[in-house]
């Protein structure tokens, strides 16, 4: 069962004939894409109104509190389910599943419970069912999702679908963190529809994209 001699020459010739980017080139491209995505996302966020506290019935501590909680959950998702660590095979299935199930629940619970501590924090707004928050979250999350999936192509050999869902979850959490600065409503139905649902939709989109491109690298 010895290795045929011609094989090494053949493989080295095949590799030489097909250029592939080095680590520094990949990092440069990723950095440029991340910068462009950040500028576009922040541009869209500012164009729709940016941070909104004046005129809205929510105090600064309420806004800062919900924003800080959402940001903390986003960072936890990034560390627990998306960070690559020292494995080329992607995160374990248990980490991915845990993050995908728990993060949206924790976000919902945090936003509703913390808002309930403030007068009128959980009021229902007839004119703010959540369509705008849903749309804005999807708009702000889709580009980061595409950029994340692109940067992880071929790097989740074990669970491409689950890893894609985790990337969608992270993109959704990042979008929700921004939307949280924009939206003063914390009624449970609004939060579930306008803030949590887009995260789940982006996770589902991420799962689909992951199945297509996070597994084996095709030529």
């Amino acid at each position, binding site marked *: 069962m010895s290795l045929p001699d011609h094989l090494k020459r053949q493989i080295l010739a095949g590799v030489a004939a097909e250029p592939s*980017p080095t680590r520094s080139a990949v990092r440069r491209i990723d950095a440029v894409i991340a910068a462009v995505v950040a500028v576009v996302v922040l541009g869209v966020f500012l164009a729709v109104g940016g941070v909104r506290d004046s005129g809205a019935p929510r105090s600064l501590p309420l806004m800062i509190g919900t924003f800080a909680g959402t940001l903390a959950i986003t960072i936890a998702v990034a560390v627990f389910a998306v960070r690559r660590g020292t494995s080329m095979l992607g995160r374990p299935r248990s980490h991915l599943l845990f993050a995908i199930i728990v993060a949206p629940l924790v976000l919902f619970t945090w936003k509703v419970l913390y808002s309930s501590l403030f007068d009128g924090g959980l009021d229902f707004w007839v004119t703010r069912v959540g369509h705008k928050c849903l749309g804005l979250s999807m708009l702000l999350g889709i580009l980061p999702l595409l950029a994340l999936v692109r940067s992880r192509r071929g790097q989740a050999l074990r669970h491409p679908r689950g890893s894609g869902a985790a990337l969608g979850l992270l993109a959704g959490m990042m979008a929700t963190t921004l939307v949280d600065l924009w939206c003063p409503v914390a009624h449970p139905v609004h939060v579930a529809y306008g803030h949590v649902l887009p995260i789940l939709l982006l996770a589902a989109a991420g799962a689909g994209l992951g199945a297509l491109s996070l597994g084996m*690298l095709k030529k």
Partner: protein
Amino acid sequence: MVAFHEGSLSAADAAMDRYAMGEDAAFAVVYDVLAPRLYQFLLRSTQDAARAEDLLQQTFLNIHRARGRFIQGASVASWAFTIAGRLHKDEVRRVARRPETNCDIASLDPCTLENRPDRLLEARLAESAVYDTLAHLPKSQRLAFELVKLDGLSLAQVAEILGTTVPAVKALTHRAYCALRTTLQDEAPT
């Protein structure tokens, strides 16, 4: 069975890291350390030298294409074996969907078949009993046993490939080993 030496594995990791940074010559080092084991693994999986060679080429091409994404400090062996396993799985699926019907009679070597000695035949039968037993084991036990005992990967690397823990790999390997021991005791002449 020749086990990986820790030194050669870390040499492969270091070489892959250099390759990721742009040192093209380092790829040959990665090939020299990994190719024999990967080929053995693929040959065992496919039972076909030509397919094993083809999958080996694809495995190294995949490593090459993703070299810029290789994480410093990661195990190139775990990565390479996972790629090889995936490629084989994909091929099995493709073949199952579109089974091959043609048989290349010219590729059969009648001399080799005629000259096979009886002892070799007995060894083949014993080997066949081992592989039959392996084939009937749960997939996780079979893979853990093959990767640790036949391909010489470390428990940590196999745990990474299977997405489990080192104690779990130990338990899987032990169970497979017990099943094999029982089979071989039953097969042994009395």
